[in-house]
């Protein structure tokens, strides 16, 4: 099961979650990576390099899904028109064993539709799909044994049965050998803290408890690929952290390939080595997060603490300017693509510098920018980075 060459990726998780309270200068968004020369991806972030040379497990080639929707014509009571909704258009990408892929996009972009095609729930209207060497729509059952699926909005558990019974059933349906089942269940129950709920009927579980149950069910048969469609939707901070830690652990331990859609930027920051961005059914970006940030430009912020309050600094470094002053602390914006080194050097030389920090543009900003610039003419719109 373990892919060759699968080294535990340097943990992205070491970064504190951005939703941790941010206080002074030494807060979470002080990124050591920010000090690296611009254009160089921080170590461990280069997702496409996870398990280099490992086998391709998902292959999508010009995949397309068109839904026919019927809508009432405005103003007319009975006439209806037929509209083709191109939920996914000519999407191509490949995924290698052991990758964690974030699949992003605004509402209605086509994320869930893509995932459903990858599972074999929906038949593509055109294009070619191979998952673990199988054609999902035609070899659905064979594929189902090798993959796990979590729908954040939809439980795969048996509503009226205790959690434990649902797991038993999964075991039989997926033909999990007893030893493997016992070991996995014990482990997952401990990791996800499910012990107290094992005998509760699923309908009485809270959303977070149920989600942890769903996660367990999806991993019991040691799938080599797991899809998660908004797994953290509606969860509190603690549950989200538990879900993320679990996914990271499974990925590290067994090189499980994970593909998740989410609207939570923290999920992406903490888990995803690589992101795919889809909008209006078209793939707009495929690469790692740092590249995404860089491509889209924007500004990074240098925060400096001076020995004493001063009027706004004047700096000669091109593009840099003060955006905020608060006592001895000042904020300077500078182009994200530029190196921070000349600016830091200049300030250190000319002013009484006590401390400094560099802040990356928040991922929210990057993504918002990506969505609002539209899918078509965009420098980042470049096929697979790997």
């Amino acid at each position: 099961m373990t892919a060759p060459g699968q080294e535990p990726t340097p943990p992205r998780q070491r970064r504190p979650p951005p939703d941790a309270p941010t206080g002074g200068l030494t807060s979470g968004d002080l990124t050591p990576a920010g000090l690296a020369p611009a254009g160089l991806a921080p170590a461990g972030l280069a997702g496409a390099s996870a398990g280099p040379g490992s086998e391709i497990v998902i292959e999508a080639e010009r995949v397309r899904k068109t839904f026919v929707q019927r809508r009432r014509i405005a103003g007319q009571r009975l006439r209806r028109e037929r509209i083709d909704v191109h939920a996914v258009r000519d999407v191509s990408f490949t995924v290698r064993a052991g990758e964690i892929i974030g699949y992003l996009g605004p509402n209605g972009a086509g994320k869930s539709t893509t995932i459903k095609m990858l599972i074999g729930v929906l038949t593509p209207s055109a294009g070619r799909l191979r998952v673990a060497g199988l054609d999902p729509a035609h070899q659905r059952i064979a594929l189902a044994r090798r993959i796990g699926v979590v729908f954040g909005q939809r439980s795969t558990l048996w509503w009226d049965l205790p959690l434990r019974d649902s797991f038993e059933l999964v075991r039989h349906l997926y033909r999990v050998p007893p030893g493997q089942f016992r070991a996995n269940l014990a482990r997952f129950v401990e990791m996800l803290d499910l012990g107290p709920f094992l005998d509760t009927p699923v309908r009485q579980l809270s959303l977070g408890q149920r989600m942890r149950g769903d996660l367990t069910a999806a991993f019991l048969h040691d799938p080599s690929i797991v899809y998660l469609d908004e797994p953290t939707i509606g969860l509190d901070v603690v549950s989200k952290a538990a879900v993320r830690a679990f996914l990271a652990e499974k990925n590290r331990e067994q090189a499980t390939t994970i593909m998740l859609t989410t609207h939570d930027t923290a999920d992406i920051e903490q888990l995803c080595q690589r992101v795919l961005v889809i909008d209006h059914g078209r793939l707009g970006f495929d690469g790692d997060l740092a590249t995404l940030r860089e491509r889209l430009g924007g500004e990074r912020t240098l925060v400096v603490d001076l020995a004493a309050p001063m009027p706004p600094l004047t700096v000669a470094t091109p593009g840099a300017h003060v955006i905020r002053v608060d006592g001895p602390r000042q904020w300077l914006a500078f182009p994200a693509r530029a190196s921070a080194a000349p600016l830091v050097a200049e300030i250190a030389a000319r002013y009484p510098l006590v401390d400094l920090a560099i802040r990356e543009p928040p991922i929210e900003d990057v993504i918002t920018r990506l969505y609002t610039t539209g899918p078509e003419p965009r420098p980042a719109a470049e096929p697979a980075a790997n």
Partner: protein
Amino acid sequence: MTVAAAAHPPGALAELRGWVAVAAASARANVAYRATVAASVLSNVTLTVLRGYLALAVWEAQPGLAGYDTRRAVTFVVLGQALMTTFAAFGGMIDVPGRVENGGIVIDVARPFGFLRWWLAREIGRAAVFLVSRAVPAGAVGVALFGVVLPASGAAAAGFAVSLVFALLVSFGIRYLVALTAFWVTDARGTLAVSSLTMTFFSGAVLPLTIFPGAFGEVARVLPFGAIVQVPMDIYLRPAGGTGIGQALAFQAAWALVLLGASGLLTRLALRRVVTQGG
């Protein structure tokens, strides 16, 4: 819904507009899928034809059974089938249990349009669609194939029209009360099954209630279920100069009143204990 957003016209007018909006939305939802409507019309016509022929054969073998001659019997069966679908004599169709299960009930309760009213208005919309799309084609086929008789007098025709309104109210009342049990039992399938069976059997849709012998028949004829199919058909088939139309309508009206009153009361109790499941 558009009404809520519009400027609030005063009192009764606003109320009426609300009803119209909800009923219209429900009617639209019921014609939303044309293939579905077509399939339903077709299957309903087929059932009508089959049951019509069957009645014809039975009454030819045994003329005068249950007090009907052959043409009246076929009329009863054919129109009864149409009424049965329009007024959902087989129960269900009010999806309170589903809403309780999927948590949507919270939204229904929060709506600024009474809970009972909401479901009744929806039923009116649905029944209107069913009347046009299921009952009328089936009735037309009945006229063409079996020579269904027409009401003997204007009074019978008018009485029949009024009785349809009461039939809907009675049918709604029963089904709504049953649907409300979902607030108390986690699984309403049991109560639904019981009600479905009782309603179908005692509405007159399976067999005319006049065929039931003795005390069993007596009881069957005072239960509210008969108001859905048997009573309207009685009025329809009343011979010229026949009396008792007013009495039949009063019977329906009384049950409608009782059931809607009970519905109102039970609604208040039910909403006090909105329990939703899951998250």
